[in-house]
């Protein structure tokens, strides 16, 4: 071979260009509005730059300008697929800051656990359904959307809204569970189990689905920890980190459930982890509603959680507290706190700084999918364009949470 041949650069000599394509904020696959700036070599992704921020609404600034209680609707709209979990995380952080966390009555703890697990189920249904949809399995999507509708029916019967629940309050809840809650849950679970079986049969052993998800979007354990992965994506890599086990809160240390862990960190393992988590959530809820105690749902301290209307209208101290809390906001003592909870995407932790008044001084949420979206470029480089779709789906980027 002559020297001229050795120096021959195929790409330069054949005058090919890399195609620059913008998988922009409005694209069927970028739900949650993300922009991928791709450089393609044929069908292979050579470079992928992720751009977020299309759904930035100034969550922190809004929270700083309202009282502690007024932040709850904002927290709903963070991870809007599992809104109650954000509510609970925020409420528990404030309660930690106030030092009243252990005064929560039993029934309140049970309700919070049950609703968190319902929110987790709804989020996983949405995520897996959307993944199926974008891979072309439209029937499977509809099955899980039906399952999600039934879960939303339950959430609606409890707090009045399917999605943006605004149900938890500092020191308690907005209202109690409805009557026939247990019967309703049992009925819904029967149908949901059938739908789960159908979905499973359609996809889990399907050769085409396996081809699309196996060995795509993999990331090694070291890199996942470097990037700050948490939740199902980290567990799919093989790390057994679940906040419900590591730092148990609510009822999780008294209930019996498994935490699924994958091994390879590719998309299929993330899918399997989420599927198993749905079943475990159902298990948790069934255990909790069996032993659900009667009793109050709010902390009895009127400085923390406003008492019933009767109390406000008859007892002087309660009326004073109600007045002060409504006008000035709940007074949270000075300090700062961080409370980690296991959201459906990963570790959702609120970092709150209080100046002793009725408004948060700083209200920061640690978004789990922020860390994973960072790694998108790393996960799809060198893969096909078609591999970006399942990878992006299984990260479960929720725009509200990532951009706040």
């Amino acid at each position: 071979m002559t020297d001229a041949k050795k120096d021959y650069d195929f790409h330069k000599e054949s005058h090919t260009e890399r195609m620059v394509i913008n998988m922009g904020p409005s694209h069927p696959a970028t739900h949650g509005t993300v922009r991928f700036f791709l450089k393609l070599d044929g069908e292979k992704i050579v470079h992928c730059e992720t751009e977020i921020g299309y759904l930035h609404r100034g969550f922190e600034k809004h929270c700083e300008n309202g009282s502690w209680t007024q932040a709850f609707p904002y927290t709903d709209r963070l991870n809007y697929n599992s809104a109650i979990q954000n509510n609970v995380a925020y409420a528990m952080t404030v309660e930690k800051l106030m030092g009243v966390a252990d005064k929560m009555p039993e029934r309140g703890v049970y309700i919070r656990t049950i609703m968190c697990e319902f929110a987790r189920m709804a989020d996983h249904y949405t995520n897996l359904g959307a993944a199926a949809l974008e891979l072309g399995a439209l029937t499977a999507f509809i099955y899980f959307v039906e399952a999600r509708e039934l879960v939303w029916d339950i959430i609606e019967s409890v707090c009045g809204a399917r999605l943006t629940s605004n149900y938890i309050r500092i020191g308690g809840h907005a209202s109690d569970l409805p009557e026939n809650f247990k019967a309703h849950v049992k009925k819904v679970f029967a149908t949901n189990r059938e739908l789960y079986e159908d979905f499973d049969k359609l996809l889990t052993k399907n050769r085409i689905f396996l081809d699309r998800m196996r060995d795509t979007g993999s990331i090694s354990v070291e890199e996942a920890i470097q990037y700050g992965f948490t939740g199902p994506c980290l567990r799919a890599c093989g790390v057994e980190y679940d906040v419900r086990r590591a730092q148990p809160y609510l009822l999780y240390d008294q209930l019996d459930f498994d935490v699924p862990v994958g091994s390879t960190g590719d998309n299929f393992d993330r899918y399997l982890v989420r599927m198993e988590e749905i079943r475990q959530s159902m298990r948790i809820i069934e255990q909790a509603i069996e032993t659900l105690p009667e009793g109050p749902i709010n902390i009895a301290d009127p400085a923390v959680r406003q008492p019933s209307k009767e109390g406000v209208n008859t007892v002087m101290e309660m009326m004073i507290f109600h007045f002060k809390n409504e006008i000035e906001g709940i007074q949270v003592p000075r300090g700062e706190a961080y409370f980690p909870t296991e959201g459906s995407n990963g570790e959702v932790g609120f970092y709150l700084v209080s100046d002793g008044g009725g408004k948060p001084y700083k209200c920061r949420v640690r978004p789990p999918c922020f860390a994973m979206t960072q790694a998108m470029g790393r996960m799809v480089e060198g893969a096909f364009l078609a591999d970006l779709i399942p990878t992006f789906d299984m990260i479960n980027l929720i725009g509200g949470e990532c951009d706040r």
Partner: protein
Amino acid sequence: MKSDSAPAGGARSGDATSGPPLAIVIEKYADTGVVIHTHRLHGDETVVVHAEDILDVMNFLRKDDRLNFDMMMDLTAVDYLDNQNLNPYLAEMNARFEVVYHLYSIGKNHRIRVKAPLAEDNLFINSITGIWGGADWFEREAFDMYGIVFRGHPNLKRILLYEKFEGHPLRKDYPKTKRQPLIGPRN
């Protein structure tokens, strides 16, 4: 795929062979003047260090065998304009901002919060992207929202807001109702 049925409540703040992380940090930096302040509030341990020493401290926290903080959970900043009485050392250092890091160790299951105060006229701190690659976007967000410049960051530009945005919105002197030039007035 295996399921984990380990009993709940593993080591919550370090196992028996290592003490709580705060004690180890205090011991390491005992007379060096790196640590400004430490406290333990509601079960959270916090250490406040000088901004110049942040890389040294982070490296120690990551690599020390007793600490092993392999995950950087969160990186944010707080603006204490006119509220420096919330943290007494801020007034002494004339610091307005504080960069807050939350670290977690998966193996040892303990957490620590590291804070670094910054003065308004010296908003520079070293980037920790060399230690944890995942700090990349978190630092960009702190820059975007507060204007803190992270030295050594590979790509420090705005992340949540558009490039032509003027100002740093989470600062306390940025009014909530300010209109940007590209958006125009309300009517």
